């Protein structure tokens, strides 16, 4: 299946976890990938892996998505390197968990800067070429925490809920240009981010998941690929929980 042949996708936070799985699945469907990560070693190794599957299908970019000017410059470079941009997957995210009483101002600021402002920065940077092309697929990775909240994650929850409100507004603003904007809210996915949880907390979490298991990065990537595909033409402004039934 080369459904996305000829299309160009930007994936942030693509050096590992969900972002890497997204880059792999979009590439497997024929898309060319701009692999974005904070470190050049991270983006270079994923781009090299993708290029082994299909030569020339990926290029690495090192970028801090919280840096407005750097994002603008990077996206210009991407459009100039690939000639177009069809798909943007905002996946880059960090956690600085703590109870509010102990949450430092910089923990709040950093999480909001990367997880929420980063999404604004990237959408702002690609929206003009997408508007000119009268086509675009934006998929933002939120979290079920943005819907339910979570003790110890006020900053993360605020940023992830912010992504949902931002995405619905973008969906309305950009619909007339055939640009769709959708959100995926992953549940408990096995990644480096969730590996830090203590075993007893992990057990307690598993008990709440109707499907009885944690999710894989590939489960999220499959949902992203769907939103990016032709079959999702008529879907915009939606939040899809991919969480084994945790939130319903």
């Amino acid at each position, binding site marked *: 299946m080369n459904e996305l042949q000829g299309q160009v996708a930007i994936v942030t936070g693509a050096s590992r976890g969900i972002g890497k799985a997204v880059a792999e699945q979009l590439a497997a469907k024929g898309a060319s990938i701009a692999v974005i990560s904070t470190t050049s070693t991270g983006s270079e190794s994923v781009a090299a892996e993708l290029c082994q599957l299909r030569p020339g299908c990926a290029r690495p970019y090192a970028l801090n998505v919280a840096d407005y000017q750097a994002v603008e410059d990077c996206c210009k470079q991407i459009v100039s390197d690939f000639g177009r941009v069809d798909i943007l997957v905002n996946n880059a995210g960090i956690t600085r968990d703590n109870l509010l009483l102990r949450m430092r101002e910089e923990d709040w600021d950093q999480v909001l800067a990367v997880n929420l402002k980063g999404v604004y920065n990237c959408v702002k940077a690609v929206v*003009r070429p997408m*508007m000119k092309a009268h086509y675009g697929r934006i998929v933002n990775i939120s979290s079920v925490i943005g819907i339910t909240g979570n003790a110890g994650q006020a900053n993360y929850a605020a940023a992830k809920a912010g992504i949902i409100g931002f995405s619905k507004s973008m969906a309305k*603003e*950009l619909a*007339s*240009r055939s640009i769709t904007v959708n959100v995926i809210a992953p549940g408990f996915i096995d990644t480096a981010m969730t590996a830090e949880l203590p075993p007893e907390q992990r057990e307690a979490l598993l008990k709440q998941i109707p499907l009885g298991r944690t999710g894989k990065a590939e489960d999220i990537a499959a949902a992203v690929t769907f939103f990016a595909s032709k079959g999702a033409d008529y879907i915009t402004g939606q939040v899809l929980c991919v969480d084994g039934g945790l939130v319903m």
Partner: protein
Amino acid sequence: MATNSERVIKIIVDQLNVREEDVKPEAKFIEDLAADSLDTVELVMALEEEFGMEIPDEEAEMLTTVGDAIKYVEGKLGTGA
């Protein structure tokens, strides 16, 4: 070489996807040329790019007709029609 007025009209034709004969000085972007709010923002950005100028939001809001846009650009560039 195209005059400034011709350049403005060409941008309007391209951006709003309208026929050149409809782009008369008195034509209103929204009422007569069927532009929506995004179109008008894009149009202003296209003019900024073409003429290498910055058009502040409050001035952009005043540009409601083709004639407004031409006069504005010529005024900024300091050239007569």
